[in-house]
């Protein structure tokens, strides 16, 4: 049970680690790192669920009967692109926040915002 599904355990651990970092850390860059880990866990989830034991890559060849499911791999390629776009946008925003507020700590930014109000 534990060892047989170890890939899913990795997924769950990564997912929780990433999610925790997003919530708990005040540093904007760290938040984005957490978000990336969180998303990556989902990529692994999709990829490992497509694996068929004893199956190979879906290329027609003699003597091969069993193939892994290629569809989740393709889906996750799209999701990876989306993830990169999100990270890039997040980092770009962090740069501009640094220029505008002079800090990338959530607390400092919140404090400066409260002063503005």
């Amino acid at each position, binding site marked *: 049970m534990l060892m047989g599904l170890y890939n899913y355990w990795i997924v769950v651990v990564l997912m929780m680690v990433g999610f925790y970092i997003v919530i708990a850390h005040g540093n904007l860059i760290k938040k984005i790192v957490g978000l990336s880990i969180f998303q990556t866990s989902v990529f692994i989830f999709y990829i490992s669920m497509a694996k068929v034991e004893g199956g190979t890559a879906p290329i027609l060849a003699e003597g091969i009967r069993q193939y892994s499911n290629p569809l989740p791999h393709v889906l996750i390629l799209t999701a990876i692109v989306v993830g990169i776009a999100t990270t890039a*946008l997040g980092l770009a925003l*962090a740069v501009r*926040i640094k220029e505008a507020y002079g800090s990338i700590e959530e607390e400092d930014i919140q404090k400066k915002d409260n002063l503005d109000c």
Partner: protein
Amino acid sequence: MLAHLPILQVIVPLMAAPLCLFLTRSRLVWLFTLIASGLAFLISSLLLQQVMVSGTIIYELGGWDAPWGIEYRIDQLNAFLLLIISAVSTIVLLAAHTSIKQEIPADRHTLFYILYLLSLAGMLGIVATGDAFNVFVFLEISSLSAYALIALGKDRRALWASYQYLIMGTIGATFILIGIGMMYQMTGTLNMDDLSKRLPEVAHTRTVFTAFAFVIVGVCLKLALFPLHLWLPNAYAYAPSIVTAFFAATATKVAVYLLIRFTFSVFGLSFSFTALPLQMLFVVLGLLGIFAASIAAIYQKNVKHLFAYSSVAQIGYMIVGFSVSTTTGLMATLLHLFNHALMKSALFLALAAVVYRIGSVQLSQFHGLGRQMPFTMAAIVIGGLSLIGVPLTVGFVSKWYLALATLENGWWPVTALILLGSLLAIVYVWRIVEVAYFKPPIAGRESIKEAPLSFLIPIWTLVIANIYFGIDTRLSVQVAQAASQSLFGVSP
């Protein structure tokens, strides 16, 4: 050509977006965007007409059969949403050229229109598609462009709001992705129609239950259900005014559509409302949202903030209608979706006009505006009356059906609370009226004039729609009824 309408609906704005780069002058790009959005509006009206006459339209992308290829499936619900989104987008765009001249630096105008079109294409795509993974892709297209659009706001707080929205939005979208993955794992299909047939066989498994929970929480983050609404007020308040008018009327509506689609069509009514205590959960959160957000709205000093909180409250009404889970309840939700889009786009466009003239939306700056900008302020008053739910405005129609739906179910305390919630709306609308009409103009600002026609025409189009659909409810009620009946599988 007519057979390809479902895909053209999405492709037109999607393809128009990069083409904007070739047009250098701001006015040209604006005209081009307006034409693309207008075309989308035309297509969605044709689609709605076609669906109402001949039923669901199925379009297979590239000619691949449904479970393998991606299929676009337009039924009454989709067509209704497509019409709302493209109509609001087009009307709001009419004022965009004048409004962004002041709010966005000139070298970013083209980028603004590109992002706007991408966001529009994403939203239309979410609604048009019948493929669960496609939903995620379009969701991210519309969200990513939304984050960038919000960050274009003048105030530095726009950046912070956009960042927070990015974090929350990505968590929501990833939750939806996890849910879709689990559904695929159990059924081997991503087609929504196919999913709805295969999920009942595996409905007892824990995986399906977990998938459902992930999807629901993800969607609720996107639709800003109380208490997951924290990203919304700042995002709406600091985004460029045009962006706020567009998103307030469409973005959360698309998420409400996803909620309805996943619970009613994909997971099926009997599973959705038994797996989780969804009814109890949503009625409580909906009502809490109505009260918490309305009370928060009363204490806001920034009028954009005020209406943003009111948006959270209005989402509460939609969720209450949804949780009744009868045809009347769902109809009330759909009607409120339509009506709220009309109210909020009118209100936020009027605020855009105020920003254009006085450069601020602080309530303290509204003194005497009732006399200086009579048409704009009259629009805010009528929009506000509609929010409260005064008869002869659209707000009354949706509140009426909502009250009817809850009473039908014997939930009279809920009905009472809904009416009480409307009273709170009177308070926050009155605060604006009081300042604008009963206070003398601020010294040194006597020269403020009425907003230009490029604002007044779209604002009053929306205001007149607010009144028209409040009196002649045939179109909205008929479509909402047909859509909710088809979701319940009742043949009309």
